[in-house]
């Protein structure tokens, strides 16, 4: 038997995006292989969020192509739904449902999107809550948890849908400093388990430890792509150097 050629799992090709007259993505092209971990960084307003939000169609791109696991993102609802089943996302502000318990937060999508029965959905949820190390909070409400715990629940909620790639949009930047670590450890664990990940983050320690490649964006363009060591120790572009100087004081 011959293995299929390793197709990129996710591909962006010449992607352009405008908000009104403002072009926020210019010719963004990159691809991600299965199991690869990408860290995206860049100054505020450089289009990092917009770029990863295009991957599950929270934002609509107007130019170029995006393929996820061979499915092209177009206006077709069917494709969008299929892609969203493959892609999980974790947000800066957690976006947990405040009126639902932790367990209900984790079961609502498996039950109503995949039609899984309540009991089975709860078993799956508890398994992932154990994996993010908060099974004992299953019957609490989000407001009763610390920010770090909420973000770990958000990760578990996403994992319950069995995604093949996880997107993180600054998952630790709304957290108190002492809570950042538990979330990064959870993400590192996920990476070690082989998840394909795209993380917008400025956590340099995490990037060095986990990332296969770092993508640096500025003004809606990809400026530099490099391995973490190259990126932090020997950046090629002057804009990258300026940015690194700023975030490292």
């Amino acid at each position, binding site marked *: 038997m011959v293995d299929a050629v390793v197709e990129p799992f996710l591909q962006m090709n010449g992607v352009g995006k405008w908000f009104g007259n403002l072009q926020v993505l210019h010719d963004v092209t990159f691809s991600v292989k299965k199991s690869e971990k990408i860290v995206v960084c860049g100054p505020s307003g450089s289009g990092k969020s917009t770029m990863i939000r295009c991957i*599950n*169609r*929270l934002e609509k791109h107007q130019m170029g192509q995006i393929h996820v696991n061979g499915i092209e993102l177009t206006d077709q609802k069917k494709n969008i*739904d299929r892609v*969203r*089943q493959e*892609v*999980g*996302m974790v*947000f800066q*502000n*957690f*976006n*947990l*449902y*405040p*009126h639902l318990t932790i367990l209900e937060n984790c079961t*609502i*999508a498996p039950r*109503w*999107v995949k039609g899984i029965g309540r009991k089975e959905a709860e078993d799956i949820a508890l398994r992932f809550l154990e994996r993010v190390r908060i099974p004992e909070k299953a019957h*609490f*409400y*989000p*407001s*009763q948890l610390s920010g770090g715990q909420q973000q770990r629940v958000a990760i578990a*909620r*996403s994992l319950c*849908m069995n995604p093949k790639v996880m*997107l993180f949009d600054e998952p630790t930047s709304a957290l108190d400093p002492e809570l950042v670590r538990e979330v990064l450890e959870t993400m590192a664990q996920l990476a070690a388990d082989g998840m394909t990940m795209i993380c917008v983050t400025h956590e340099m320690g995490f990037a060095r430890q986990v990332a296969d490649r770092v993508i640096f964006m500025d003004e809606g363009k990809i400026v530099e792509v490099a391995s973490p060591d190259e990126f932090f120790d020997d950046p090629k572009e002057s804009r990258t150097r300026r940015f690194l100087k700023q975030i490292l004081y």
Partner: protein
Amino acid sequence: MDFNYIALALPDLLRGVRMTLVVSALAILISLAIAIVGAFLRSLPFKPLHYLVTGYVEFIRGTPYLVQIFFIFYGFPTIGLTLSVFWSGVMALGIWASAYHIENLRAGLAAVGNGMRDASASLGLKPLHHGLFVVFPIALRAALPSIMNTIVSTIKNSAYLQAIGLIELTYVAVEKISYEFRAVEMFASICVIYLACIFTVSGLGHVLERRLKRPYLGR
């Protein structure tokens, strides 16, 4: 104050309050149903519907309630829609209250953060499920205090319906005064009855609020 007289008048008054409560209850149901539909239509991206609902709200809130009652009772038959006194009253009260409930729901919807839509979309929830299980419950909880306010006003405003001859509590009192001349006894009595009804309803509202609030609002 002649308490014997009040005791004798009580059966008539209780018949009146029964009508008050039935009309109010139906009007409350109708107003909430109209409001949910209205708030939903207004949330759609189709602008003309938005203006239609806003126009409805502004029209109801900008015209005297008594005029609306007369308009429905005397005006609707001219367009071929003849309603009994009872149903004219229910419709007038329900339509009046619906305008306020639409506004209550708008405030509730504004309390649903933008992040909820992102979360649901990223999880693949259908818009219908997102609306039913996420937007609606969050909005309802946020709107509940003002919804309760409007419900209390609905009960009180049923008194205006005596103007078209609906035999509710105030009508009964006014009519008895007109031939028995015990104004103080009658108005005191119906005030107590209205207060009792409204305390009961707002008490139920508080219980509901506490039940629904659970821990998520406070911390």
